[in-house]
């Protein structure tokens, strides 16, 4: 009889971007994002569970929990079973809270939708989309028994397991080449104000439009889709600012997928955040706003600047003084640092990009959707074939910014279909909320 040798538990350090999430998560902003697929038929839980089990074999990093070490949080492999369930909680509800050991993602379904919610410390949007694509393909294969070209799917994500689990920050950026952090003496950004929803609730406004039309509109102005929509966002925000408030700049934080600059097949975090700045005047002219935005993007999106910034962040993480501080002290320090940097930001916009799925499955899929928890206002763009989705999540009761934004879009002749989680009498589908609490 063979003796079983117990292997020590698999574990890994959190990557550079992930380290900031546990200290700065709370019920107000649990740092959870959702990517979802809307099908043309109702979701089948049994097929979904089978697909999930198979997907987890290909992404073993997802079978992890977060544990507290003396100096840092870390990921540890877990035997917890991931079960598919019908959506029964508020979107992007906290995944990591208290000392409970839980998996860092949730797969749920509701009517025609299949949702994947991920805690940001585990992965970024691009990484999560890889997981979702695999899940959906396996689900549709299980449900409809379609035969796929071996090539059609395998080629799209041909990453060995070690490449998927790769910490690309560690691979590309080092403290040796890092500089000192830039002193953020820039003027404080305009902060959106208004009646806030109770902690844990978000206003979600989703706009669906044809990709071809949005691309054409951006092209007509000589800009990329991200630049164009950032300008529309800034205009929509600006139109609600008083003349006095317009003295403050409107800064939009835009995450950049580093995989397009530094080759990586990592399914974990690999992104950098840039700040796009715009100063508004008494008159808001869209072309001016767009010009400022484009200049800002051009300034920030150079490979050299990104590399310097990431090396600085790496230097910060690997600094001996920073490393040796116990976690109990590091947490409030990091929390304070994140809160301070938030004051430099008015809102966030993230273009997750175009998601591709095998052609044979297109008749089962209507659209792909993505949105994220936020502390103020967040816009996420994602597209699948000709369905372009712009998703607003906001902690504010008011939908004025969303209204102005979508009216700008429709004025350009682009048809828009709006979905939202508001009820008719302006309740966000739930009546009771809690005060904000620190999650950890």
């Amino acid at each position, binding site marked *: 009889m063979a003796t079983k040798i117990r292997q020590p538990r698999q574990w890994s350090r959190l990557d550079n971007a992930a380290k900031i999430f546990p200290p700065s998560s709370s019920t107000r902003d649990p740092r959870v994002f959702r990517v979802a697929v809307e099908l043309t038929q109702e979701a089948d839980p049994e097929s979904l569970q089978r697909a999930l089990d198979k997907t987890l074999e290909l992404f073993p990093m997802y079978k992890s929990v977060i544990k507290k070490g003396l*100096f840092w949080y870390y990921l540890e492999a877990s035997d917890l079973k991931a079960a598919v369930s019908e959506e029964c909680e508020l979107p992007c509800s906290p995944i990591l809270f208290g000392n409970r050991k839980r998996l860092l993602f949730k797969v749920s379904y509701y*009517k025609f939708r299949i949702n994947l919610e991920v805690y940001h410390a585990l992965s970024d949007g691009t990484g999560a989309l890889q997981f979702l694509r695999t899940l959906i393909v396996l689900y549709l294969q299980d449900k409809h028994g379609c035969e796929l070209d071996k090539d059609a799917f395998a080629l799209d994500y041909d990453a060995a397991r070690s490449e998927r689990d790769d910490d690309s920050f560690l691979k590309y950026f080092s403290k040796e080449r890092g500089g000192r952090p830039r002193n953020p003496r820039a003027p404080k950004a305009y902060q959106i104000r208004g009646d806030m929803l109770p902690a844990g609730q978000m206003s979600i406004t989703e706009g669906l439009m044809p990709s071809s039309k949005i691309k054409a509109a951006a092209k007509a102005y000589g800009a990329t889709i991200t630049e164009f929509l950032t300008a529309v966002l800034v205009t929509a925000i600006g139109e609600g600012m008083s003349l006095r408030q317009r003295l403050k700049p409107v800064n939009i934080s835009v995450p950049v997928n580093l995989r397009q600059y530094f080759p990586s097949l990592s399914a974990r975090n690999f992104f950098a955040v840039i700040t796009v700045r715009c100063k508004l005047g008494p008159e808001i002219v869209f072309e001016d706003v767009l010009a400022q935005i484009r200049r800002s993007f051009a300034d920030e999106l150079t490979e050299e600047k990104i590399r310097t910034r990431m090396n600085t962040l790496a230097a910060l993480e690997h600094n001996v003084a920073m490393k040796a501080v116990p976690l109990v002290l590091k947490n409030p320090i990091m929390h304070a640092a994140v809160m301070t940097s938030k004051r430099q930001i008015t809102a966030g916009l993230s273009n997750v990009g175009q998601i591709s799925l095998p052609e044979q499955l297109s008749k089962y899929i209507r659209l792909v959707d993505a949105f994220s928890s936020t502390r103020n206002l967040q816009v996420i763009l994602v597209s699948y074939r000709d369905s372009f989705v712009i998703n607003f999540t906001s902690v504010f009761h008011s939908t004025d910014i969303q*209204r102005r934004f*979508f*009216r700008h879009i429709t*004025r350009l002749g682009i048809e828009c279909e709006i979905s939202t989680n508001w009820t008719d009498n302006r309740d966000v*589908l*739930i009546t009771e909320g*809690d005060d904000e609490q620190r999650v950890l």
Partner: protein
Amino acid sequence: MTSSVFCEKCNVTVRGNYSRCPLCQQPLAGEAVDGIFPHVKPHIRRLKKIMRLAAFFSIVSVVTCVALNVAFPSYGWWSVFVIAGLASLWLSLGVLINKMDNIYKAIVWQVVLISVLALVWDVFTGFRGWSVDFVIPILCTASMAALAVIAQAARLNLEDYVIYLVIDAVWGILCILLIIFNIAEIIIPSLICVAVSVISLSALYIFAGQALKAELKRRLHL
């Protein structure tokens, strides 16, 4: 598929049978909403409600006692005991609830906390030595026994709780300081505690050395 209505002011189709536009609140043709998100029932955290009531009663008790004490000062400042007692209770309960998800963590935290509280109470009531003679060593020994029993009963992976066994045993070994520095007058409970701690740590090292080393590497990584 869900139905939809058109808002003329915003020039958008709204998915769901809305009677008011979600963007501009203008009336629309629909009657009842049926959307892409489920209606979620509110979570009422029962624990929070109980905590609020308990906090309120504590404040009432403290205020009443202090008022009575000020009115009738002849028996000494007994209200301080009430305040200190309630404060200790709240501290202990607070830590327990915070660490409740992990029973080992909860036990270890309680042992350390109650030891410190007992010492403080002892010192402030004339240092008769009951905390160092009995409370601290017996608490440590009992907790080591409790952890061992729970570990057996719950049949969890050793790696999940080995770190807590170690912390508890180290705390137990520290009781030797009570003997060396003559802080404790009755040394038998402390002796038993130290002996049990040393035996536990040795057993852990000998039988589960690898799991222990792996766990320490994870927890202490820089």
